[in-house]
């Protein structure tokens, strides 16, 4: 969930092959963009245009993934894929 300009929870542990779905509860566009503003993954940037918008991504490969919002770059999240 995205609420009050925060990814909730900010950290997540999942197994490889899990699909994560984000639901935007804010009345403003956010994104889930893999990487960091300094080192972004241009390939994966999921828009969530407004309230109740959803976006999903399947994490197939183990590793630690950071993500952020393109419009509000202090919003950060982490996913550990085992």
């Amino acid at each position, binding site marked *: 969930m995205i609420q*009050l*300009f*925060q990814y909730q929870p900010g950290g997540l542990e999942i197994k490889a092959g899990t699909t994560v779905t984000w639901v935007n*509860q*804010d009345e403003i566009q956010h994104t889930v963009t893999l990487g960091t503003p300094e080192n972004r993954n241009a390939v994966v940037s999921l828009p969530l245009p407004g309230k109740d918008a959803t976006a999903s991504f399947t994490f197939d490969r183990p590793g630690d993934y950071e993500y952020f919002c393109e419009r509000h770059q*202090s919003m950060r999240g982490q996913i550990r894929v085992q």
Partner: protein
Amino acid sequence: MKVICKKLIGAEVIAALLGIHYGASAMAAEMNHHGMISSDLRTGLNSLFREHVFLAASATGAALAGRDGEFKAAAGALDANSIDIANAIGSVYGTGAEQAFLTLWRKHIGFVVDYTVGVATKDDAKKNKAVNDLVQYTQDFGAFLAAANPNLPKEAVADLVKDHVLTLKDVIDAQASGDMNKSFMAIRSAAGHIGMIADPLAAAIVKQFPDRFASR
């Protein structure tokens, strides 16, 4: 009169949704119903927001006059005020919201600084970009408060914040003109207007958490 009415619209919408008449006697009755705590909240938020206006005006005035030491001191005090406002938000909505609010609040101060620099350097492109950034910011801020409190509609909050931004713009423009009378009138106007954000915010919080405030 049209400008004044327009400025009141946002506060009136929020007041209507809260089921209160935005008038002195009705507001006093609402506050009395919830006792001293709600008035403490309202007074506290007004104090913090007015301090924000006075410190922002101090910073912009110093910057425009080239008083660098004074600007840095005012900017430091302004940031301390921002932290205090965020603490107040966090005391209601938690530390995550506090940090998110602080980041967002600081962002608008950055845009105001950008506008001031644009005015000082007579850079119209920089000024216009800052204004555009501030207009976009009003949507972000409205969305934040709407997410925090169902009694605060996004567009009504955005309209009030837009008016706040415009009152600060008036201060900066007046300071840049060198007209001191105009500058201080604009500062008084900005300080007076920001109560239209503080009052509904306080009332909305009290309505959202009646037990937390009524019990003290």
